[in-house]
């Protein structure tokens, strides 16, 4: 049903109907912004990346054959834009000692807090989550993308390989390395708290 609606909107958008394109944006905006946010961690930048992805989609409407769904196309574009962004930010941090992160933006650690937990439990959970988040933020861009797409977006590795234009074996290796770092940090955090 959804595919049929999407196909109809796509056809109308190609014929220049602005409202049809706006409806497509509305259908995918939350997923696209979420993906960008999970990849880069900054809400404002994530919205810019999502916006850029939609603008690129708009420009390629005439050529869009529909071999993949609009969602898959957007996922691919957002992931590539996010990877480029992460690489630039990483290099900027090394060259210019930039501090990334805006403390006023939504903090996923706050959003994940368990209201039933004791203050001590909350503190420990937050401490651990913060360290894990730090490790995630420091992963190489492609490794992080693979991890986010598998762990948070729950895409199968085959689809991730297609999105990133990588071999499935490479994707598996990236996932393994990312998880290995997270596991090592988690063990270290547990040892420190004892």
């Amino acid at each position: 049903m959804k595919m049929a609606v999407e196909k109809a909107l796509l056809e109308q958008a190609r014929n220049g109907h602005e409202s049809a394109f706006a409806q497509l944006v509305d259908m995918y905006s939350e997923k696209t912004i979420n993906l960008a946010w999970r990849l880069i961690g900054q809400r404002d930048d994530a919205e810019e990346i999502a916006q850029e992805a939609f603008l690129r989609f708009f420009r390629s409407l005439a050529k869009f054959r529909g071999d993949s769904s609009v969602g898959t196309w957007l996922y691919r574009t957002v992931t590539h834009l996010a990877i480029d962004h992460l690489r630039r930010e990483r290099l900027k941090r090394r060259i210019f000692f930039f501090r990334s992160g805006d403390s006023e933006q939504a903090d996923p650690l706050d959003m994940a807090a368990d209201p039933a937990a004791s203050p001590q439990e909350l503190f420990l959970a937050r401490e651990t989550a913060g360290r894990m988040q730090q490790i995630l933020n420091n992963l190489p861009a492609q490794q992080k993308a693979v991890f986010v797409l598998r762990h948070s977006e729950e895409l199968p590795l085959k689809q991730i390989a297609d999105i990133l234009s990588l071999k499935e074996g490479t994707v598996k290796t990236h996932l393994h390395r990312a998880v290995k770092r997270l596991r090592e940090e988690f063990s270290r955090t547990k040892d420190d708290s004892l």
Partner: protein
Amino acid sequence: MSKKNGCDEKQLVLFHYDELNKEQRQQLQAHLETCSSCRTGLEQLQASLAAIPPYNLQLNQDQKNDFTARVVAGTQRRSRSTLPTWGGALTAACALTLAVIFFNPAPPADPVMLNGPTLADLEILEQFELLEDLELLQDLELLEELEDLG
């Protein structure tokens, strides 16, 4: 955990994410029954992944409408004729060329007295340009990964 004796951490990761085929899954399950090291490894892996905060941004309809409006406005900006843009760029280029020809200052005797950009500023500008080179960024990331592998 090494690959000897059937212990393979990568397989544990793939098992956790249900990415093994039927045969591989059965082999690993059989191995887990006899290998406490791998069972512990799997538990630690699962605990560490559970510690990662879930990222889930929920947008209300106003926020979605606002975002959609921005995207649509962006398509309209880009749809406008590019002739004024090119015309403006050409005019600016001509003005700049003329300015350089007519107002070309003599080089100062003492370079220390320069009030223009310092060498450090120019170096920073060059480094900013590096940020646009996507191939370079990709190569740097690859080098970092190799460094991590030792």
